[in-house]
């Protein structure tokens, strides 16, 4: 967990306080000015209520050039960022035809399948010609092609579960599956850092705390009626996308087994990216997949496609096929995107007849660990665990968000800065996602730029130790 330094907390609060005060002041004058304008909205409540919208109008719009930056290329290791300009103090942004080639530290392109690939792309184009981009039908009607069936088999085999079901959107995979499995009288225990697509729930990032929560809930039962819960499911993520941390899966599984709770593992960021053969957090931490009841993951990240899957026992998958609304009503996943996943998994498993998959996996591991250790050495406050390709750098102060992002872009490095609502208000951060397609030179350049910008913006919250040591040693030698 992040431990917010006292001084940073104070300055951050002060900054937000100042922004809030000035925002309110501007709102006040805006109200007076609007008073004179005609009221054509008479009888309607405003579509965006004042306070709901306040954050957008007064804070976000000022720095909106740091987000939603359009690119004009594949989200590979180098991207063409389209330059934008604004004539009205960032309220609206206009695209220009100018582009700047930047190093991409933002996309979830963990295995480097984002760009055209020598093995995957020809197969994808082949399926596109055969199946066209869409089936215009849902899976239960006429939206199941041979490719969908093949992908479900391939995924089940890849994650080592008996069966799998594939949906067209990763986000909807969570939001459409959880209500099918859990109804009234069922308890969902969710990590407080889980992604928005998973319902926010109890805070339980540690297994010890999870045990406490489970004991209490089983003993107390449902609120008010005190009937026992029908079932309890614990939802965790393999890699927390905003923290870069790995979940403590073996401990969590042990606790869940002890208390007969079900486990739901969301591997949106970890599948394909970690583990010796890319099978995700279970493989990395040595957990038998039979112990995880439901394994969910997406194809948007490591496999460079779209959609998501649920892998579980045959009965559960059959139940989902009979009830999941996304399976019934949503247009099935686009066939070329399905093919991309099949081909990418084949590469990862080495079934394409080369060792590119293994190379990619060792490359991302090497890259991540090198980059993480270098960043820590420089004195950045980096979150997350080793082997995780996601590494957030803490920024805290609201003014540092645009400063960091703009300065990096000026040096042709595209980084992602994350602020509220994706993180708590005080814990703004920059997030770096390392890819297997980054070369060592790319990473060294990125580190140089980050270090320079880090000094400028003042986000090296920790002392720079190891390099000093080196300098001391050399001095001693000289003496």
């Amino acid at each position, binding site marked *: 967990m992040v431990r917010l330094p006292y001084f940073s907390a104070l300055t951050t609060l002060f900054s937000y306080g100042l922004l809030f005060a000035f925002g309110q002041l501007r709102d006040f004058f805006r109200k007076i000015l609007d008073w004179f304008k005609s009221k054509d909205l008479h009888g309607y409540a405003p579509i965006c209520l004042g306070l709901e919208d306040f954050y957008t109008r007064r804070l976000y719009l000022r720095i909106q050039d740091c987000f939603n930056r359009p690119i004009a290329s594949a989200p590979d290791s180098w991207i063409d960022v389209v330059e934008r300009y604004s004539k009205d103090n960032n309220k609206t942004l206009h695209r220009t035809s100018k582009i700047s080639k930047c190093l991409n530290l933002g996309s979830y392109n963990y295995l480097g399948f984002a760009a055209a690939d020598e093995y995957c*792309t020809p197969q994808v184009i082949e399926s596109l010609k055969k*199946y066209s981009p869409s089936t215009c039908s849902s899976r239960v009607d006429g939206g199941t092609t041979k490719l969908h069936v093949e992908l479900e088999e391939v995924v089940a085999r890849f994650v080592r579960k008996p069966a799998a079901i594939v949906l067209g959107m990763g986000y909807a995979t969570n939001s459409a599956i959880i209500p099918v499995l859990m109804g009234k009288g069922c308890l969902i225990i969710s990590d407080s850092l889980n992604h928005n697509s998973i319902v926010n729930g109890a805070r339980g990032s540690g297994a010890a705390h999870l045990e406490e929560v489970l004991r209490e809930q*089983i003993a107390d039962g449902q609120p008010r009626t005190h009937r026992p819960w029908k079932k309890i499911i614990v939802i965790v993520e393999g890699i927390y996308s905003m923290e870069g941390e790995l979940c403590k899966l073996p401990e969590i599984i042990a606790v869940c087994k002890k208390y007969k709770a079900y486990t739901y593992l969301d591997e949106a960021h970890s599948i394909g990216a970690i583990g010796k053969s890319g099978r995700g957090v279970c493989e990395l931490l040595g957990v038998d997949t039979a112990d995880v009841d439901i394994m969910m993951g997406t194809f948007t990240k490591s496999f460079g496609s779209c959609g998501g899957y649920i892998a579980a026992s045959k009965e559960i998958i059959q139940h989902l096929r009979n009830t999941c609304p996304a399976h019934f009503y949503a247009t099935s996943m686009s066939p070329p995107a399905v093919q991309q996943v099949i081909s990418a998994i084949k590469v990862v498993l080495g079934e394409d007849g080369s060792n590119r998959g293994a190379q990619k996996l060792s490359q991302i591991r090497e890259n991540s660990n090198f980059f993480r250790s270098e960043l820590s050495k420089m004195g950045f406050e980096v979150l997350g665990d080793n082997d995780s390709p996601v590494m957030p750098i803490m920024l805290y102060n609201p003014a540092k968000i645009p400063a960091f992002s703009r300065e990096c872009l000026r040096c042709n490095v595209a980084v992602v800065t994350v602020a509220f609502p994706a993180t708590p208000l005080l814990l703004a951060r920059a997030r770096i996602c390392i890819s297997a397609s980054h070369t060592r030179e790319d990473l060294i350049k990125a580190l140089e730029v980050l270090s320079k910008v880090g000094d400028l913006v003042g986000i090296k919250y920790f002392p720079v130790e190891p390099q000093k040591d080196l300098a001391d040693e050399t001095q001693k030698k000289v003496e």
Partner: protein
Amino acid sequence: MASGVMNVTTAALDWLSAAFDAPLARAVVFGVHIDGHLVVEVLLIAVILFQLSRKSYKPPKKPLTEKEIDNLCEEWVPEPLCPPITKQIEAEAPILESAAGPHTVVDGKEVVNFASANYLGLVGHEKIVDSCIGSLEKYGVGACGPRGFYGTIDVHLDCEKKISNFLGTPDSVLYSYGMSTIFSVIPAFCKKGDIIVADEGVHWGVQNGLYLSRSTVVYFKHNDMASLESTLEKLTRGNKRAEKLRRYIVVESVYQNSGQVAPLDQIVRLKEKYHFRVILDESHSFGVLGKSGRGLAEHYGVPIEKIDIITAGMGNALATDGGFCTGSVRVVDHQRLSSSGYVFSASLPPFLASAAITAVDYLHENPSILETLKNNINILRKGLADVPGLEVTSSSLSPIVFLKLKKSKGSQNSDLQLLEKIVNRVLHEDSVFLVLSKRSALDKCRLPVGIRLFVSAGHSESDILKACESLKRVAALEIA
């Protein structure tokens, strides 16, 4: 005897009052003569006050001991994660072996496909495939990130512009999944306390959106304007508070669940009368209705800006995937930060956005395709008019032709079984691929089930007649 007792009591009382009075017999405090009963009263008051000041009795609360919790945990038996599958495992959906065009291959046999909402016949269209290939080579397949984090590719912006230019709206926003469009849009604008009036026949995506918004939802009778008006009247009459709340009417232009078309002109009249905003799902009318395919508003000649929020999935007429929402700049910008399906989901694969651009262009250049579609709908409706035991209940405008049993078998399940038999026979004996209006157990829609035929401009007249003949033959055998 009695008088003896009386005597004793009076003597005792006398003695008692004398005993009380004795020390205070002549005590006068501030001019008040203090005698015995005053002392008793004061004592009484003191006792009452003492009792009042005490806490009421509560049994001592002991928290569960560790051991008790251990026992509870051991005793607790959870339900299985999914109910046992008792139902005969439903026949798996047919597996397609080629593109889902007007003709497709199922089980190695070529069939006429009425299962895909490929209204304009754009599945497998050369131009669209070409634009996709160009896009795939340039951008790869996925966008590898949400829109906020370098997942915005220039084709997304071009596609948004293309759609708003086509519809004549100020701005629009792309979603990566058709169904998630509506269930992200509704909660972005409707919060707890707001009022939503919705049609009872809306599809699951809308239902989910209404549920997620936590607003007060009131349903009106399916496509019944009188019911809508009375609902609106009830909600607003004399309700001063309602004026301060955001109020929405949520309707579909062509209802997936019934093939009915919403009378937009009346809805707009009611909306203006009662000051409601309209959220319209145009998934099955965008690219289908209106003279140039601009949807329901064009069909009714309603200015597009009268409809506050329009959403549509692109997995139908445009033959791609994903969805969009369009409206005023304010409506669109609000979603870019507050709509969960937009903010938290990876963006639409760029080749699907290219396909959408090409499809809109194609429609723009070839409006005659809409005439073909209309013609096909008419031929099919005419052909199905005398199918024994079944009746067409969809609107004559709708590209979804909905066939309902004239006489229900009693329950939805038995209806479905009968219809399923018909559909299976039609597929296996006559190679015509039809689908049922299957519903998930989570779906709250209670409209009657039926057979759905998605008409395409790509169907030839003989395809359609074949379907009609086959249905007539099989229905006569199965229902009669």
